[in-house]
């Protein structure tokens, strides 16, 4: 049995494994990667991480911080190289997930159950034909769901999974893939999750208090249904997808001083998200065309009811967002070594909320990207320029922000200096911006319509070295190191207006980030035992230069550790897999005032899992037992939001 290599970076498809259905599937029409390298987790690598959601998996990338409010239901957002959550584009099957309201994507809502790969790009993706949106964020995460593959003469794949464990979690799912003729196949996937979200946690001080409590109101109930159609045409393909997500969850809230057990926090949130999206790709000789569309409807209901919790005030808000999106991208190879790409996207967003004095904003965004790349054996160059036009409308005259049009460039270079093609040097420069979100501009009492876009500029230089051996114990070694310098200008920050209840948004911030990302991975084979080891390390000095008169000028920005890293090891022997994952987040501060009051302890967790495949004739059963946070470390990622201690999960999959 050949195992996929754990946490391979910058390597394409992984070898097949024992569970046909779990094989990493690579699209026949995936375009050759051009220049910018990426960090990818796919197929079995993802399964070995004891990860429930996309957020749990992304923690193993270098240069990434996940803000995690704890538990299965807690908000989980990604911050790449300290530029802020809103600078990260998250793409689902190639099309961006939107949240025009606050620009944040809760990665905890996206299941790994049907995920084929998770990829992180610093800068931008660079494939042969890509939408203008692919150029439009400072960094991007691509979530690629599984595409059906049928081994031999099979026409049907059926897989049923039941997972369960700590926090009274029950998580069944079903995947049904059906071949419909020679060139069309269908995939249906449904998943249900329910959890009480209750876990014990401890807060203690040296020679002081030592208290243990149970996290309350962290329950989640979620249903996800995905239906996809996949078709092949000569020199091309098309896809159509329907996605439905419905959930209810409690807000456990900040753990602050209170008379224990006196007040029950009962505020709740309901989400209903629906989207349908499709894409069409075809190649005619040297010309490639990709067209895609999306329509999304997101509904959020938040309720805080003093009849349930006397200490809160009544809040009952409903938010409805809609998004329509169209994209046409094309590329043309002028010569074998020179191509030109042109893409144009249009997006329309609306936000409806039952807030007092709400202006009911809508936003039109037009994006056009012109890109060219030159490829020689020793040198690859890519340059692109993105034009963005944003125009907001509001129901009330004069309430909308003025329209913006912005040009932003990117330049990428890859150089192979030696005869060894496996050693390369790369560099990129990218300037991009994020528009103020609809909340930033229009949220009643907080929004400020005079906000300017927030710009980020990135400079990156890195190197990659891969080495493969066919004989001996070592099969592979790869190493990547990047150094970078980022500047975030006109950073949109919340600032108090005149009391705790009044905040407003301003373009005040200036943040400079200097960092190093490094990763090393290796694969070993010792007789029948194979081992894959990988370590990542991140150093970040992210300083706030907003206010020269502030005593905290130049302080490390909140929640960014100077040092962080991960280590994973996967061993396999005769159908057994043993995986170990370690995450480390170094000391950091909860405020730009880097003083003892705001100091946050380092945290590090170790997870273990053991899995085995039991062949049952034509069928197969796969069992996995996970133990997470095996040393029961009591830690928090976000101040006052305790994380779970040791917890278990058992997963059983049956393949028909």
């Amino acid at each position, binding site marked *: 049995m050949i195992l996929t290599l754990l946490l391979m970076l910058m390597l394409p498809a992984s070898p097949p494994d024992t569970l046909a259905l779990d094989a990493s599937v690579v699209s026949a029409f995936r375009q050759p990667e051009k220049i910018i390298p990426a960090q990818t987790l796919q197929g079995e690598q993802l399964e070995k991480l004891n990860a429930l959601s996309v957020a749990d998996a992304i923690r193993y990338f270098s240069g990434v911080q996940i803000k995690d409010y704890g538990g299965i239901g807690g908000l989980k957002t990604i911050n790449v190289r300290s530029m802020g959550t809103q600078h990260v584009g998250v793409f689902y099957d190639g099309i961006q997930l939107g949240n025009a309201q606050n620009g944040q994507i809760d990665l905890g809502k996206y299941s790994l159950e049907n995920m084929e790969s998770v990829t992180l790009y610093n800068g931008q993706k660079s494939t042969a034909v890509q939408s203008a949106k692919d150029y439009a964020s400072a960094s991007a995460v691509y979530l690629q769901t599984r595409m059906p593959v049928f081994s031999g003469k099979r026409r049907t794949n059926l897989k049923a999974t039941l997972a369960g464990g700590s926090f009274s979690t029950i998580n069944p799912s079903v995947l049904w893939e059906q071949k419909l003729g020679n060139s069309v196949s269908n995939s249906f996937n449904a998943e249900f999750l329910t959890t009480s979200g209750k876990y014990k946690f401890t807060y203690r001080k040296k020679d002081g208090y030592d208290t243990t409590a149970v996290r309350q109101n962290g329950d989640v109930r979620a249903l996800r249904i995905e239906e996809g159609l996949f078709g092949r045409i000569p020199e091309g393909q098309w896809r159509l997808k329907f996605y439905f997500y419905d959930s209810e969850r409690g807000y456990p809230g900040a753990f602050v001083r209170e008379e224990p057990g006196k007040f029950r926090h009962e505020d709740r949130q309901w989400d209903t998200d629906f989207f349908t999206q499709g894409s069409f790709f075809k190649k005619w000789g040297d010309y490639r065309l990709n067209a895609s569309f999306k329509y999304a409807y997101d509904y959020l209901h938040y309720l805080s009811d003093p009849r349930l919790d006397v200490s809160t005030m009544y809040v009952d808000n409903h938010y409805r967002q809609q998004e329509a999106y169209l994209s046409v991208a094309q590329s043309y190879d002028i010569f074998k070594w020179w191509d030109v790409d042109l893409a144009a996207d249009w997006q329309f967003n609306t936000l409806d909320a039952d807030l007092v004095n709400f202006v009911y904003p809508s936003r039109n965004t037009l994006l056009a990207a012109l890109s060219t790349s030159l490829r020689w054996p020793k040198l690859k160059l890519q340059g692109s320029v993105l034009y963005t036009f944003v125009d907001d409308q509001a129901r009330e005259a004069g309430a909308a922000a003025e329209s913006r049009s912005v040009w932003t460039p990117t330049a990428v270079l890859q150089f192979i200096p030696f005869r060894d093609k496996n050693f390369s040097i790369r560099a990129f420069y990218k300037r991009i911006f994020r528009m103020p979100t609809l909340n930033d501009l229009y949220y009643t009492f907080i929004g400020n319509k005079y906000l300017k876009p927030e710009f980020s500029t990135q400079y990156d230089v890195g190197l990659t070295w891969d080495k493969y051996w066919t004989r001996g114990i070592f099969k592979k070694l790869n190493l990547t190191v990047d150094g970078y310098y980022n500047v975030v200008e006109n950073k949109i920050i919340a600032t108090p207006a005149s009391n705790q209840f009044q905040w407003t948004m301003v373009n005040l911030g200036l943040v400079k980030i200097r960092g190093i990302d490094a990763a090393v991975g290796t694969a070993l084979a010792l007789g029948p035992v194979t081992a894959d080891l990988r*370590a990542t390390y991140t150093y970040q000095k992210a300083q706030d230069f907003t206010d020269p008169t502030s005593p905290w000028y130049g302080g490390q920005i909140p929640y960014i550790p100077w040092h962080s890293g991960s280590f994973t090891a996967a061993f396999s022997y005769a159908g057994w897999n043993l995986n170990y994952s370690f995450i480390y987040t170094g*000391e950091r501060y909860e405020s*730009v005032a880097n003083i003892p009051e705001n100091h946050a302890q380092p945290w590090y967790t170790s997870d273990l899992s053991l899995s085995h495949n039991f062949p049952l004739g034509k069928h197969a059963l796969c069992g996995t037992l996970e133990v997470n946070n095996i040393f029961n470390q009591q830690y928090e990622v976000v101040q006052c939001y305790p994380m779970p201690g040791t917890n278990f999960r058992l997963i059983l999959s049956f393949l028909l």
Partner: protein
Amino acid sequence: MLSDARNEFSINFVFPFVTKMKRLCLLLLLPVLLFSGCRTIEPVTPSEKTDVGGGDAGDIAGFYLLNEGNMGSNKCTLDYYDYASGIYRKNIYAERNPGVVQELGDVGNDLQIYGKRLYAVVNCSNLVEVMDATTARHIGQVSVPNCRYIVFKDQYAYVSSYAGPVEVDPNYRLGYVAKIDTASLRVVDTCVVGYQPEEMVIKGNKLYVANSGGYRVPDYDNTVSVIDLSSFKETKKIEVAPNLHRMELDAYGKIWVSSRGDYYDIEPMTYIIDTQTDQVIECMELLACSDMTLCGDSLYVYNNAWSYVTQTSDVNYAIVNVKTHQVVTRRFITDGTEAQFQNPYGIAVNPNTREIFVTDARDYITPGKIYCYTPEGRLKWSTNTGDIPSRIAFTHQRLQ
């Protein structure tokens, strides 16, 4: 032959493997070794002393300052300034009360000394923390949901709270005033008042509370509730102006109450209520007030008013003579140092020395500052405080 083969195997296979493994382990451990450290049990955050210079303030030994701390951060802290030594000591509660779980709590809203006790109203912790005024050590606590401010008379403390009973429509939820027996530290009675009640004053046997209705935008409350302390029943509602907040009672039986307006069209102003007639007798149209403090006949007022129309804050200052109702000056800081303030947030005047204290909450998420001015308005000293410094309570008992 066999052993040779084994040796060869060892030499060519195992040894390099071992050395390679060692190298690999080192390589993998290197980042771990570079990490600055491991966890220890978090120590109690110690207080921090700054020598700002002392002085003689007669029977006033010093003052306590309550820092609100940003909502959800559990960072309400207590500072102490000592006149005799001239030491400003930041964050004294935690080290004096290491056994109190989660320290002072989340969002301190009011601080008062009554008798030998120091009372802190901790809004988002839903409790009133009761401490010994000479040691700042925990004595007890009284749970009051969404508590705001505290006043005292005789044996009782009165605490305003947003969390009144919920009738049919939860949008219409009145607040109340809780009556607390300071001996037993129990709520003995409650009296429902207006929407989101804030500051209170007691004149004779009547308690006046300013109802804000801050959660009922744009339908702010505009009344002052009057409670008869004997029956502990609301006897009257005085209509004043929208969004009431601060209250000061002067020596002439007049209550100065601030209206914050609606942040759009209705300007913030200060109103005067006569406690004889329980009627509004005057509106100080040009006296906008974020906070005020009374010292003798001088009412020190500052205003840091945010306008959503202009998207700017307008800060100004005044001293009003409460006898004549005339503005004495629009500048009580005379050396121009008020330009350093980012967000003035609290004010106090030492009744003995007439020193003026102004706190600056800065950006709310980093430590604030306190500024001490001479009676003439010249900066004497300033130092860092906790996050969002707000309430000052002068004490006659020196902190032990």
